[in-house]
């Protein structure tokens, strides 16, 4: 009998914060980023999370030799900030890559929603990200995870056409129904693409609930957790987690690092389970059938849909205005404009405009510098207004030639 596969994948992400940009700045100042805030944010994240957690992983990967494996995805925009503000963390990830037990996945370079807007821009960013990963970590990614695990049949087919064999997404309840996320599925529009679905319940036990002291099973131990893993009935358990869970969402004092240090031993000691990377998972387990996803799903909210990004009029308007520029950008082919275009596409920009922030009690995924969605929208639109002026000026210059 095949051993049950445990597929651990970590999403590393820090959005590029935009600076406070008043309407007086439009047409006068085209620097859009809060450099100080970004630096502070990155420095804090590497101290609290990336460096300590990478150290634990490295220690465990080496100790378990080939038996322990994990996967990572880090968007190019975040890697750029690492290079600028914390190059040591790149070395740290590289050390993990060098064990050969870590798979680096591909995503969109700017952690964007491009897959919902423009095929061309989506592909542009996927290619850029693939090159970046290869450049930094020396491996060419074969598995794809889209921003926020956004997935639909058509996105799956497009991803396969870009050369990927496997794609990750959320085990959305309304899609799976009675079916279990704990099997390998295939894309309904492209049967050759394998689809791995996140076990949200077991993933959130670690990512969300771990430090909740009022949780009835708190504190969670590796032994207890392994029992739950054993209880899962399928071939594979996909644990897809925000890496910031380790040390930021759950502070070190919660015991999260000790838990992660103990987990590999506990899983391997059980004898019925093995760690796999996504690329290995699809070699070990054949697809049990297609999964049909007509409207895009994601791991962002309880409904697993796009509402936190594109649920209200403000978000949709900003999104449409931004992607209305796509064709001009590709005509211009200007790398400076294209880089700003990319950062303006980062999903967090739209997330901050979400109506959920009008009500209290919503867990905040990223540190949010805006007090209200209005502020987020106004700041963003002021910047976008400046950017549109620059694009149009560049087009005018080009047309004169």
């Amino acid at each position: 009998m095949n051993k049950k596969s445990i597929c651990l994948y970590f999403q590393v992400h820090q959005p590029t914060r935009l600076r406070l940009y008043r309407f007086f700045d439009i047409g006068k100042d085209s620097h859009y980023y809060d450099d100080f805030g970004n630096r502070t944010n990155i420095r804090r994240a590497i101290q609290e999370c990336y460096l300590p957690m990478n150290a634990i992983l490295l220690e465990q990967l080496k100790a378990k030799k080939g038996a322990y494996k994990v996967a990572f995805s880090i968007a190019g925009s975040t890697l750029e900030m690492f290079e600028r503000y914390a190059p040591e963390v790149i070395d740290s990830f590289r050390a993990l890559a060098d064990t050969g037990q870590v798979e680096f996945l591909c995503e969109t370079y700017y952690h964007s929603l491009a897959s919902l807007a423009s095929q061309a821009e989506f592909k542009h960013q996927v290619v850029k990200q693939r090159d970046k990963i290869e450049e930094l970590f020396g491996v060419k990614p074969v598995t794809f995870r889209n921003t926020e695990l956004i997935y639909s049949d058509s996105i799956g087919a497009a991803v396969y056409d870009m050369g990927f064999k496997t794609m990750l997404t959320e085990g959305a309840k309304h899609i799976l129904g009675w079916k279990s996320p704990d099997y390998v599925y295939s894309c309904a529009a492209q049967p050759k693409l394998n689809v791995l679905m996140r076990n949200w319940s077991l993933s959130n036990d670690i990512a969300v609930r771990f430090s909740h002291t009022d949780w009835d099973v708190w504190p969670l131990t590796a032994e207890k957790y392994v029992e739950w893993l054993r209880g899962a009935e399928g071939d594979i358990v996909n644990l897809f987690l925000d890496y910031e869970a380790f040390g930021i969402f759950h502070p070190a004092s919660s015991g999260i690092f000790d838990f992660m240090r103990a987990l590999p031993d506990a899983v391997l000691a059980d004898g019925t389970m093995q760690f796999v990377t996504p690329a290995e998972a699809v070699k070990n387990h054949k697809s049990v059938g297609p999964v049909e996803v007509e409207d895009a799903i994601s791991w962002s909210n309880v409904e697993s849909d796009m509402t936190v990004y594109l649920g209200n009029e403000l978000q949709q308007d900003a999104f449409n205005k931004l992607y209305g520029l796509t064709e001009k950008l590709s005509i211009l082919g200007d790398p400076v404009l294209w880089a700003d275009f990319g950062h303006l596409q980062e999903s967090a920009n739209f997330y901050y405009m979400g109506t959920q922030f009008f009500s209290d009690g919503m867990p905040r995924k990223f540190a949010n510098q805006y007090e209200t969605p209005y502020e987020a929208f106004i700041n963003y639109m002021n910047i976008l207004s400046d950017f549109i002026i620059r694009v149009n000026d560049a087009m005018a210059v080009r047309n004169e030639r």
Partner: protein
Amino acid sequence: MRVLMFGWEFPPHIAGGLGTACEGIVKGLAHNGVETLFVMPSASGDEDQSATTILNASDVEVRNVSSTVEEFINKTKYVYVDSSLVPYVDPEEYFSAIEEMKREGRLETTVGFGQKFKFSGKYGATLMEEVARYAQVGGTIAMQYVDRFDVIHAHDWLTYLAGIAAKELTGKPLVVHVHATSYDRGDEKHIDTRVLDIETRGMQAADRVVTVSDLTRNIVINRYHIDPAKVVTVHNAVDFSGRENLQVERGVRDKVVTFLGRITFQKGPEYFIEAAAKVLKRTKGVRFVMAGSGDMMNRAIRQVARLGISDRFHFTGFLRGADVQKMFALSDVYIMPSVSEPFGISPLEAMRTGVPSIISHQSGAAEVLKYAFKVDFWDVDAMADDIYALLQYPVLSQFAAKKGFDEVNELKWNNATAKLKKVYESLI
């Protein structure tokens, strides 16, 4: 549950927002099964009494103590004579007299000594006298109706003495309702210490102090040094029933940004003017309107002229009645940059008219309006940015108008007074 409520005014004849709030409160309480006896200094008879019984203090015969309490009579006889002949009698004296009577156990020795006093119910020069007299009448009414209420509720400092007198004489619990404080009315150097004193007395004597916002609650706790345990916030609501949508024709094609309120220090008019100048540097298709009057109006006009924006910045003077509604209907953005505002009902009116509103964090309304734009009153850059965005990004103003309209329609007195009812219940 029955409440003896002391107010100062009640629609339709009102000078400020207090009367409107009182009407909302008695109606909401009626909805929650709470009966109210509403006492006011000078009722006209055309008040809507469907939700409450209105007692006109001017109609009440003051039952007073007999001549055996010579001293008390001497100190309080002004109640019975024409106001122009009466010297100002300090509420302090009145209270020490009451205290003394209680101590000596002479309070029961009352005889009928019927006299009426005609209250003006206005906020005029004789206000202090009226406040003191109102207290006297209030005590009398409380004794007359002693079997018909469980709790006493007094609105703002004008009625606190009446509330205290009623409590002293009947022993029933007192709730004072703080709609505004001296600290909101002017800068600290010009605070009327007599008013401050009555406010402090009222809050100290009260079993519960109800504030219209957490902002005001903090003032009550920190400036009046009232025990936080007895201070409860019940946010104001607004009653839009019977409101018709006004259709107005615009004379100008430009967008209109409106400030509507008294042009006084605490309403922050100069910040609005500064923000207007910043917006006008960038865009021309907009006009700014300052509607209202007040002691800073001339200064405001000079400031506008100095900034060179007089062609785009207009003063309407004081607006009343339908003109207020019309002003809202003509506006694209409403702004309330108050330096200190216990609550501030006007943005609710604006949002109800479908006008997106920018309000200061220093207003109580900011605590309940999720869909208003909020800035610090001094942050003219942020204010200008919000104004510009609302003019420039149509989807934003549409969104804010729609959400704001829905939001203010949900702020109902029925909910606010349910909370008030709980306050009463905790006292008996």
